[in-house]
């Protein structure tokens, strides 16, 4: 069995082995640290947690029927009038979400690359028995969610794609037509499982990154909050597609 060399001799930046002072950092800046990147991820992530909670609540309006759902959709456009212009609130929200997405994804990419470079020679045997499956799913799960968000926006917001070929100008009917399609419901349920896992670790992790879990009790509380919120959000989102497919929510 052969393995790649562990050290590329002389390739490690300005490191001079055994001459400690030669490699000390000068002019260190807090805002350029990995922790600053993590804080950016935590704050942008918290924006998304608030958003998905509100979004999930709005979706449940589908249980109140065609008119209640479409009125809610219209109210989102009228929100804040007359202080804000028509759809003004939605545009503010869109800008905040887009900025958060750019921050969250770019910080993740930088940290992912750092982590890959931190261990270029892999273990032959490595166990990760003390961490949750969800925590190891953050990066690939996050990528899955990014692809899902692109499809989701094409489906309901930007493109308005009705997979059954029907009308797209009625939000409630577009919703029912979409989730009446079994494979589309399956995609959504898979995405919600991914979202649940992402939130399960992400919520507690954001608390930890913001320095709010400095003892065992607050850590346990943050982990419980993460799990409960993840179940509520992913579960709440899943109800509508499931009940459409089951024929409970109909046109």
């Amino acid at each position: 069995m052969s393995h790649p060399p562990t050290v590329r001799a002389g390739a490690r930046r300005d490191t001079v082995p055994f001459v400690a002072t030669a490699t000390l950092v000068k002019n260190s800046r807090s805002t350029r640290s990995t922790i600053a990147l993590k804080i950016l991820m935590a704050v942008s992530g918290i924006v998304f947690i608030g958003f998905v909670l509100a979004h999930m609540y709005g979706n449940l309006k589908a249980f109140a029927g065609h008119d209640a759902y479409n009125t809610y959709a219209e109210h989102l456009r009228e929100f804040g009038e007359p202080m804000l212009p028509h759809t003004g609130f939605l545009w503010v929200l869109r800008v905040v979400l887009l900025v958060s997405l750019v921050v969250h994804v770019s910080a993740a990419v930088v940290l992912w690359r750092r982590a890959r470079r931190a261990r270029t020679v892999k273990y032959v045997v490595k166990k990760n028995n003390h961490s949750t499956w969800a925590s190891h799913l953050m990066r690939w799960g996050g990528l899955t969610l990014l692809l899902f968000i692109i499809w989701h926006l094409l489906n309901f917001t930007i493109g308005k794609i009705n997979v059954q070929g029907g009308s797209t100008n009625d939000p409630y009917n577009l919703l029912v037509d979409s989730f009446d399609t079994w494979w589309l419901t399956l995609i959504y349920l898979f995405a919600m499982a991914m979202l649940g896992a992402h939130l399960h670790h992400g919520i507690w992790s954001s608390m930890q990154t913001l320095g709010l879990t400095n003892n065992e009790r607050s850590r346990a509380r943050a982990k419980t909050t993460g799990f409960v919120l993840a179940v509520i959000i992913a579960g709440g989102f899943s109800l509508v597609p499931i009940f459409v497919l089951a024929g409970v929510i109909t046109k």
Partner: protein
Amino acid sequence: MRLTLKIWRQPDAATAGAIHTYEVDEISEDMSFLEMLDVLNEQLNSEGEEPIAFDSDCREGICGMCGLMINGEAHGPQVTTTCQLHMRSFHDGETITVEPWRADAFPVLKDLVVDRGAFDRIIQQGGYISVNTGAAPDAHATPVPKDNADRAFDAATCIGCGACVASCPNGSASLFVGAKITHLGELPQGQAERDSRVVNMVAQHDHEGFGGCTNIGECTAACPKGIPLDVISQLNRDMLTAIKHGH
């Protein structure tokens, strides 16, 4: 006990290494893991083969010198150092894979020996308290609340063995840095340099090529001293405070 050992052999830092397989017999379950390797080395010596290089010093679990990746777990299956791990944790006929700590910031020097100088350089950036020389102050001159003293002491049990880095999928040293930050930040003497300490130590941590923390918790499970994840939260909070203070 009869064991099959798959051990990483690497002649020096610049040469490629590989896993070699060895057989040892008549291993007592009361031997420590390092004593088992000593037996193997005597066997290799008598066969004229180069013995396996590994780090060890106190062999009583307090110096932080030893540290091996055993069957994919830092310091093996028990929460202790490799020197305090006993062969009763394994069973007869078992195959054990032994590797050095893997992190680009910890380059392999030979076989199972890695250079953990990166930790020393992080400490040099603020893992201390600057004190003017002179007569030692009275021990009770600076009161320290019991809770703070306890937390500082718990964090100070970190022996810098590197198991946190070795077990972290991101190769992060956040638990190590967090332990030092918490240890000094809990004490009155540590306040003067608190902001610059966290900024400089983290900058050195990043500069050495350690990865970022994703709060998954493999480090604290591998830590022979049971340093909790709290210290990473404390590290993050101290960094936030330093940012607020304009560092």
